[in-house]
């Protein structure tokens, strides 16, 4: 918990965020650990073909309609050079 002068995050929002994550995996009958494994596999598969910004991959389930969607940022040539130093 942060103290003054930083504003503390409202507990209502904390509850909402926690629930969203939890219900997501429960609705899929997929544990957070399985989600992580799935994410790793997806990243691994895609990386065979294009360079992926692994730290910014977002894997999520939307409710209506139920769908699994992934946002996988791709590293372009220039960025890749910077990334690899």
């Amino acid at each position, binding site marked *: 918990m942060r103290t003054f002068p930083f504003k503390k995050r409202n507990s209502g929002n904390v509850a909402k965020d926690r*629930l969203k994550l939890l219900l997501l995996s429960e609705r899929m009958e997929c544990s957070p650990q399985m989600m992580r494994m799935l994410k790793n596999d997806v990243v691994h598969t895609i990386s065979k073909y294009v360079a992926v910004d692994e730290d910014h991959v977002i894997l999520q389930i939307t409710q209506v309609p139920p769908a699994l969607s992934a946002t996988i940022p791709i590293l372009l040539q220039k960025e890749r050079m910077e990334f690899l130093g």
Partner: protein
Amino acid sequence: MSEVIVITSGKGGVGKTTTVANIGTGLAMLDQKVVLVDTDIGLRNLDVVMGLENRIVYNLVDVTGGNCRLKQALIKDKRLPNLFLLPSAQTKDKTAVTPEQMIKLCEELREEFDYILLDCPAGIEQGFKNAIAGADRALVVTTPEVSAIRDADRIIGLLEANDLRDIALIINRLRPDMIRRGDMMSVEDVVDILAVELLGTILDDEQIVIATNQGAPLSGDHSMAEEAYRNICRRILGEEIPFLPLEPKKGLLQRLFKKH
């Protein structure tokens, strides 16, 4: 056409029984013939909330087991002549009733009543399966707390899996002061998370405790909770009632001299 509505929540203690008592009373006040069925075998509750605990002779298990006729087990409300209660049994055997028996019972009650409200036990065991077996529609009661919402989500999933797709949400025990501070999830947050139609919102109101103490739901104290229950009843009947803001707009003087 009569309708069988199951009131369920998953988690215990969120206000299912109070909701059944108040919606039942509200519908009866709107000239509907209503029966409340307590399906929580072994832990009967609805009778005390309705103040009818001293009038029980026969119960749900007596009816499904054929020990008495349905009419013998129905208890008439103290105030409203068109409101009845079918109390649960205090037997320990929770398997005393089957889903098939419940479906048959609901069919019988349909002939006599406009609305059949089933008070579902907490949990997802046999009692839950019994309660939802004969229902056309489900009202899921929750409070703006993580545990209750998680269980409500699970219940919604189970209802859909059992082909009960007419599901509406009642959010109970809202505290406008806490929502304003950001320390309680708002109505919008809860609806957003659970993604089901909202039927009504009830404020955390001490009048509810008082009414339950007295065994007299909706006794005309004109509290916010009473108003909310009345609106829910009218929405059940198909009226379009707008959702009011949780807090009535207060004047400057009221804001300066508010109690808490």
